[in-house]
């Protein structure tokens, strides 16, 4: 059930009733977090952008401004996008054109062909990390991890491929995830981040454009 379809809940939200707000918070938080993460809000800013979204959505102005006709989700996502921009700006992390601002981008998953150059670089780098980790595995672990993490099979399906029980697949997957992050750490990731590299590339390109090099 969505807020706009439940008269009592909607009126509670408009009034600022504590239980209605908590219900809104719990019901819509995961979706807001997904929207924010797709909008270039990085892991270190996600909590702040999420908090700011709901503080704004629960302000009296926002509560009274919601017409109850349009889907609340759309209303909330619009607030989330503005909150994301302000949080990133305040943290000095908003590069121009870094955020897709059109309405459609928030409605569903942003397809990879719409990645910004920074997103595309990050996506490629993350996949490369996972593949590098897989290359350290052998036999059934490699088969399972490839099926699960590269081919995107369910845990059960990937387990079935190598004859693991459901329980075994669950345990082994948890262990693989821990091992993958340990691998990441041991590889020494103090090197430049993808975003920093992209920014550097852009800066160098602008120097060329200005005839400075």
């Amino acid at each position, binding site marked *: 059930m969505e807020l706009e379809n439940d008269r009592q809940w909607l009126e509670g939200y408009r009034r600022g009733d504590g239980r209605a707000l908590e219900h809104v918070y719990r019901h819509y938080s995961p979706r807001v977090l997904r929207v924010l993460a797709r909008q270039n809000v990085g892991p270190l800013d996600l909590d702040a952008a999420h908090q700011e979204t709901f503080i704004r959505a629960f302000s009296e102005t926002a509560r009274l401004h919601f017409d109850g006709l349009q889907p609340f989700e759309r209303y909330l996502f619009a607030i989330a996008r503005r909150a994301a921009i302000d949080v990133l*700006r305040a943290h000095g992390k908003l590069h121009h054109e870094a955020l897709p601002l059109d309405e459609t981008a928030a409605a569903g998953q942003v397809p990879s062909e719409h990645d910004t150059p920074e997103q595309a670089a990050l996506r490629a780098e993350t996949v490369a990390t996972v593949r590098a980790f897989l290359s350290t595995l052998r036999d059934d672990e490699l088969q399972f991890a490839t099926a699960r993490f590269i081919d995107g099979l369910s845990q059960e399906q990937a387990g079935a491929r190598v004859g693991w029980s459901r329980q075994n697949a669950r345990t082994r997957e948890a262990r693989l995830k821990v091992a993958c992050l340990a691998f990441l750490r041991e590889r020494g990731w103090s090197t430049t981040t993808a975003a920093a590299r992209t920014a550097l590339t852009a800066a160098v390109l602008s120097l060329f454009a200005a005839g400075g090099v």
Partner: protein
Amino acid sequence: MLFFDSHVDAALPELARGGMSGRRLRRVLAHAKACHRCAPLYQRAVHTLRQLETGSPFEPAQVELDAIVEMNAQEVLKKAAPPPAPRAWLWAPLAAGALVAAAVFYLPRLHESDALEARGGPAGLVALRVFCGGAGQPLKELREADECESGRTLAFAAGAVAEGQSVALVVSGDAVVTVEVAEPVTAPVGAEAPVKLTVELRRRGSAVVTAAFASDVEQAKSAARGLPAGDGVSVVRRTVRVGR
């Protein structure tokens, strides 16, 4: 220093296994945001975990969804509750010169460090608060998206969890003449003390406030000026829109 004791490394297995509590994630994030070594590690770990779980580095992992919802619940719902009696800043208009002295006495005390995370500091470790006053108007604290009008004056308050910290403040932007100040931090997070600086807003545009906290004042100054900051330096940046 509390949060600097444990780098993010120790939290990676918990992150991968899932089921991290909101309180634990808050501490991990507080460290990652303040530690130059751990910030990129945390981001990469989360992107990689998301890739494993969801097939995309831009789809949050379950552990993030659960822990962030839990850690922000109290703060969000508390803020949404009807406000208590008007706070101390509803008093008489102040001249710019009197602002700092007045703020010493009237700065509202916030005891939950949670409340300060929204102010842009590495969660809970340091806090910077920005106030808009002067020009015959009451002093008010500026939240992230708030505006202060040209002709009015900015004032600041700072606090740090760790003792022996200095704060360097640089205020720049098209609305102000750039000013710098550095001084010891005398107050903890939650009971911030005014910084001895006021800045007049000369025209509309924006003012960028950069505060750097470090145990070494020279390190704080250079970080506030935008030079690369070393370990243990926390930088908070706020942009104030200046209207009219």
